[in-house]
């Protein structure tokens, strides 16, 4: 899948569907044929699944939760004990004296204020480079405090779905793109950073550092919506911060790599994924190449890696193999 089509998919286009034979790389086609010529896939699937379940791990999820908690606590601790290593919150901060600015918050300020101070520009460029190097939406799943709360809400949601008490009502994925444009235009036209009024990331980060306030009610409302109405609605269909970092990560070296060789196309990965359209390639007959990175919308959360019984998904740093 080309970069342009993966970006289009991030912006809301439906995944392409099954590929024609001539679209598939001959090597990949040969592997697929060999894989299924053996037959007895059902048994192998069951066996692998049993093996995997036996040593079921949440390795990446645990690391991620640790990362989110530590990063946010660093902000809190730094202020509480006046260490002055990290000052500010997730919208903008100074880390060891270096300016950091959240790209979306900075964009809102630049559009509303229509002036760019050099410090803000430095902070923006620093953060751009940092998150490009780390994978773009890595910010979402490894740093964003709302992501963690939403993950817990999602666990409740999935339990309720299993008990048939609620039904997930999906929205159109293009909603986020439309809202992105709406918030850009609103900042430009009104001259206020309109999105910041409802950004759960800014609200949560500030609440953690400077103390809770009424604004947490908005975050609570979002979580309730996600539990009872629509799974991961904010992160999937709304958050412009996620889209911003998604765009940053399009050419990032850090991504999750999918390899068709062992994959038995169970689809477990898509069930746990917040952005399952990036895992569309894992469906039988959807991958054009033997190995490929998932699209930029992937938050590099590693849930699919944890759940995959065949080890077909793995983190990869492009170019690192060549270096080593």
């Amino acid at each position, binding site marked *: 899948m080309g970069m342009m089509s993966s970006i289009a998919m991030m912006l809301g286009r439906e995944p392409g569907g099954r590929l024609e034979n001539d679209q598939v790389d001959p090597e990949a086609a040969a592997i697929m044929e060999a894989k299924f010529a053996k037959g007895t896939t059902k048994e192998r699937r069951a066996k692998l699944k049993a093996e995997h379940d036996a040593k079921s791990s949440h390795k990446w999820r645990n690391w991620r939760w640790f990362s989110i908690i530590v990063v946010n606590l660093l902000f809190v601790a730094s202020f509480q004990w006046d260490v002055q290593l990290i000052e500010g919150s997730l919208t903008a901060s*100074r880390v060891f004296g270096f300016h950091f600015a959240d790209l979306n918050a900075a964009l809102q300020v630049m559009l509303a204020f229509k002036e760019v101070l050099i410090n803000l520009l430095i902070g923006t460029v620093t953060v751009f480079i940092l998150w490009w190097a780390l994978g773009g939406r890595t910010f979402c799943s490894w740093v964003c405090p709302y992501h963690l709360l939403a993950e817990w809400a999602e666990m409740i949601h999935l339990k309720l779905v299993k008990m048939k008490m609620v039904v997930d009502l999906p929205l159109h994925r293009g909603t986020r793109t439309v809202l992105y444009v709406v918030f850009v235009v609103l900042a430009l036209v009104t001259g206020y950073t309109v999105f910041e009024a409802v950004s759960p990331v800014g609200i949560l980060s500030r609440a953690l550092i400077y103390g809770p306030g009424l604004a947490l009610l908005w975050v609570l409302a979002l979580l309730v919506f996600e539990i009872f109405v629509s799974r991961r609605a904010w992160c999937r269909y709304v958050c412009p911060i996620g889209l911003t970092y998604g765009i940053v990560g399009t050419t990032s070296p850090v991504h999750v790599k999918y390899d068709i060789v062992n994959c038995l196309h169970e689809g477990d990965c898509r069930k746990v994924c917040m952005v399952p359209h990036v895992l569309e390639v894992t469906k039988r007959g959807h991958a054009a190449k033997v190995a490929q990175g998932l699209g930029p919308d992937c938050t590099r959360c590693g849930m699919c890696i944890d759940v995959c019984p065949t080890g077909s998904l793995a983190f990869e740093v492009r170019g690192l193999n060549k270096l080593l």
Partner: protein
Amino acid sequence: MMSDTNTSPPAKVPSRRARAARRAFIRSVFFGGTVVGAAMLGFFPVKKAWTKRLRPPGALDEDDFLAACIKCGQCVQVCPVEAIKLGDLDEGFGVGVPFVGARDQACDFSCDAVQCVLACPTGALTHEIDRKEQVTMGLARVTRPNACLARRGEGIKGTARGTDFDGKLRYMEVDRWTPIPVTDHPYDLDLCDLCARECPIDGAITIERLNLDLSDLRGDPVVFDKCVGCGVCEMMCPVDPPAIVVVERLRYGDL
């Protein structure tokens, strides 16, 4: 859900998938509209000025300030007396925007070099100022002259704001570098002059005698054009509510 595409009749009746997509679209419009609507509600508190706030030193004009502020709170973190607080949800677009609640804790310039201005990454607190005398937060006004102790010819004994007051102030004569709790600094004055006495700006407030009769102690607090609106007078005024308050963004000569 999955097997419906092959079995459903063609044309006329939209397929289940098409209907699901249609419902998803309608939901998207509603949810997206709700989020944008909720964000735009932030207009009302700002336009109606429901909560007028004293902004930290160097703040741009209110509209520019709200636009330029990235809502990070770095100004909060550097303030030695923690005078700066952040706005909440009821302030609309002012959520996360810093203000000084002068009555609880005024800006006493004990940082000496307007640290909040230096901390601001976006220039919402303009870097054009670097001395306390250049600050223009507002202007002090005696709004309740009849309550003013000086005007009534009364003194002050004990702490300025009672024993459970949390505010701090730098008393030059006590400690040049460190602000101390106001409760640790009792007074014994025949005539209250705390607003003038503790004002961090030279020549901003004086107590002018009401008449030349030396047996008549009464005096009137008079605010001059040097006043920067830091709010120390408002914090230190012993009567409650205070006789002197800072009017946000008012400048000398506006009256």
